[in-house]
């Protein structure tokens, strides 16, 4: 690990230790925040008891399904828009300002349409993450060096062959950035939805525990989300970086 | 090692054997602290820059040419030795020195005019004088048409002209240039070289040009210093003997080939060394 990596680890450990100390010495009330060690013990118990397993699996499933749809549909739409310059010219300003709109506020509409359940959650999560994939696809297809396309023509490749053998690998780093972003947004969308209104899932469980003053469970589950989210995003980011470094020839 | 100033140039009058800047036994060693790895980047260097001369420095990559410039300009402290400019020891950047860097240093958020005026305004020069000098420099560097443009709208060569103009308005007595034409194509380089000579004659400043292009060094300067591979020291000083009124057409002079050949003769061995192979 690099020198900065060690410093970083030190900073995180120091912050956690500080929080632990503040909680143990009563500077922070027990009813407000639990000490990190207590949170960890609570999480351990939760995992052992398995009582939240169904919720955990449900949330995970919804996140993966939403990501998959966003990536697949986003790529397809991105490729189509890329192929139609006039459509692209009209659509691009909208895409650019898309993330300035708090799209999450459309969640209640989906609840009215689909009822409370996974469908509404997946719908809003896809709505949140699809545009990131579309813009990444557009950028990726843009950045394929023209000389590679010319090479394809010299080799007399058919469009589908060129798309799979040249376009896809050449655009892959940018496409993967889209995958990374889609996953992160899908995760945020699913958990936020479960929080606001839902009947099951980790987000719902945390909100339920909060409303019922079960701080132990709440913080245990919160810690779970923090760990899983950070681990998944860090892993995807590491892969993204490696792919990006391929670009710097 | 040949000491500069041993053979007075025939062109300059006896009185003008005036030393403008002097480096004595200057070395620069990075990481001279106990823990860091030591990198002996430069020296020992002995150099006398005569007032008003055009001096070029050539050497293999990594030999410390840029470090030499940094030390002379007061941007870096020598680990050993002494740097003297106009009779005073150099501590920080002294007044009267201008530097043109290799990279584009033009400020992207200012127009050409505001870029050129930048140094004058920061130094508190009054508006009328600033306008006078800026107009002159812009005209001199051929930027009049682009005075209100932004650097992003200009080519690399034009942007370097902006940087040169910005240095020129401050009327420096010593001008240091670190491979200023590095990113330009050959033809633009030749023309920019002519501009530089015009600038030199006009301002009567002392000029030190660092370049990796031998023809550029030969064509532009009164004297060329050849540096060895790292740690760089001067292994030769070559007088070109050109008249003051010169331009790029000097390449057709037979003496040009002789000088360039002598430079390459010394430099070739050093370049191979810096690449890690032997002759």
């Amino acid at each position, binding site marked *: 690990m690099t020198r900065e990596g060690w410093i970083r680890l030190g900073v995180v450990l120091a912050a956690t230790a500080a929080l632990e100390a503040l909680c143990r010495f009563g500077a922070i009330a027990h009813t407000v925040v639990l000490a990190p060690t207590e949170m960890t013990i609570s999480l351990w118990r939760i995992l052992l008891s398995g009582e939240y397993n169904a919720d955990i699996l449900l949330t995970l499933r919804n996140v993966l399904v939403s990501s998959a749809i966003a990536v697949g549909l986003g790529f397809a739409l991105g490729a189509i828009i890329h192929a139609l310059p006039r459509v692209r010219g009209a659509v691009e300003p909208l895409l650019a300002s898309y993330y300035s709109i708090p799209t*999450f*506020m459309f969640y209640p509409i989906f609840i*009215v349409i689909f009822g409370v359940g996974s469908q509404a959650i997946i719908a809003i999560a896809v709505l949140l993450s699809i545009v990131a994939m579309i813009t990444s696809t557009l950028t990726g297809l843009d950045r394929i060096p023209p000389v590679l396309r010319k090479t394809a023509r010299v080799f007399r490749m058919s469009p589908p062959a060129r798309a799979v053998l040249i376009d896809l690998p050449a655009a892959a780093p940018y496409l993967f950035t889209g995958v990374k972003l889609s996953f992160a947004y899908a995760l945020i969308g699913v958990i936020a939805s479960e929080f606001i*209104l839902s009947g099951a899932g980790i*987000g719902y469980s945390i909100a339920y525990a*909060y409303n019922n003053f079960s701080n132990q469970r709440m913080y245990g589950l919160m810690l779970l989300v923090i760990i899983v989210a950070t681990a998944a995003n860090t892993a995807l980011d590491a892969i993204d970086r490696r792919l990006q470094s391929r670009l710097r020839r | 090692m040949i000491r500069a100033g041993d053979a007075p140039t025939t062109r300059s009058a006896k009185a003008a054997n005036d030393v403008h800047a002097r480096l004595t036994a200057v070395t620069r060693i990075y990481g001279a602290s106990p823990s860091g790895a030591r990198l002996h980047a430069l020296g020992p260097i002995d150099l006398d820059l005569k007032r008003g001369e055009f001096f070029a420095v050539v050497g293999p990559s990594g030999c410390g040419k840029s470090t030499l410039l940094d030390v002379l300009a007061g941007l870096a402290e020598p680990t050993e030795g002494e740097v003297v400019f106009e009779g005073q020891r150099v501590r920080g950047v002294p007044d009267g020195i201008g530097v043109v860097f290799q990279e584009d240093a033009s400020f992207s*958020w200012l127009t050409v005019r505001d870029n050129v005026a930048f140094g004058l305004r920061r130094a508190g020069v009054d508006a009328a004088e600033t306008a006078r000098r800026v107009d002159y420099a812009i005209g001199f560097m051929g930027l009049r048409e682009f005075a209100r443009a932004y650097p992003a709208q200009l080519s690399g060569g034009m942007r370097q002209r902006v940087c040169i103009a910005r240095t020129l308005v401050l009327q420096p007595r010593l001008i240091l240039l670190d491979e200023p034409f590095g990113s330009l194509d050959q033809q633009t380089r030749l023309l920019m070289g002519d501009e530089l000579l015009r600038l030199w004659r006009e301002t009567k400043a002392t000029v030190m040009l660092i370049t990796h292009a031998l023809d550029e060094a030969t064509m532009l300067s009164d004297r060329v210093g050849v540096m060895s591979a790292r740690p760089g020291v001067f292994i030769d000083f070559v007088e070109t003997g050109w008249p003051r009124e010169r331009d790029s057409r000097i390449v057709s002079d037979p003496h040009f080939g002789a000088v360039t050949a002598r430079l390459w003769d010394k430099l070739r061995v050093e370049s191979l060394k810096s690449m890690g192979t032997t002759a």
Partner: protein
Amino acid sequence: MKRFGDFLILLFALFAVWQGLYAIAGETTLTSPAATFVHLGQLMRTEQFWGHVAETGWAFAMAVAISLAGGIGLGTLLGLNRTSGVVSEPILIALYSLPKVTLYPVVLLCFGLGISAKVAFGAMHGLIPVAIFTMKAIMQIKPVYLRTARVLRLSPSQLAMTIALPAVLPEVLAGARLGFSLSLLGVLIGEMFASKRGLGFLITSAMGLGDIATIMSVAVFLSIFAVAANALLLLIDRAIPH
């Protein structure tokens, strides 16, 4: 002109899709574009509606102020030193991609159920991107600018004001735009989760009552505001030379 024409066609297409969905889904699940705008007009004539707007607006304004001041301050501090910048970047990015909604109960436990909790939500969401963009911008100031400043013998404050600030401004503005949008999102989600006032609350209570028209009206209102604000910020961005 052609571009604007294309844009209008697209807008028209969006409305057509909306109308089509309404035709398929029926009165109880969606309202038509026309009906939505009519309802919005009615809402905008009530005092109650503007009370909610004021609540959200006020929380949002404060959240943005904290996000900008805190984000620029933090980003500058971390960016000035190369080591602190490299150390902090992954930590900030991890915080950025975390579903911060998970931390809402903590905020509520600390701040209670009032407007300060909402401001905290908004600031949580907006501060981090502003900090990240500012920090990176400062770390990426062209070294040749710093050397130029030394050759021109500028004082530290001259360096900061006349070179560093203009050099980082474009990136900081990009971060500010993002922080602006995310602060709004944070405040709204906070209101949807735990509030008795504000536009977010209006949406969730309308949902409870099955009042689809209000949900869509408020959504349209917020969309128009968000797009207009973003367009304004973009104009400001373009007006500054860089």
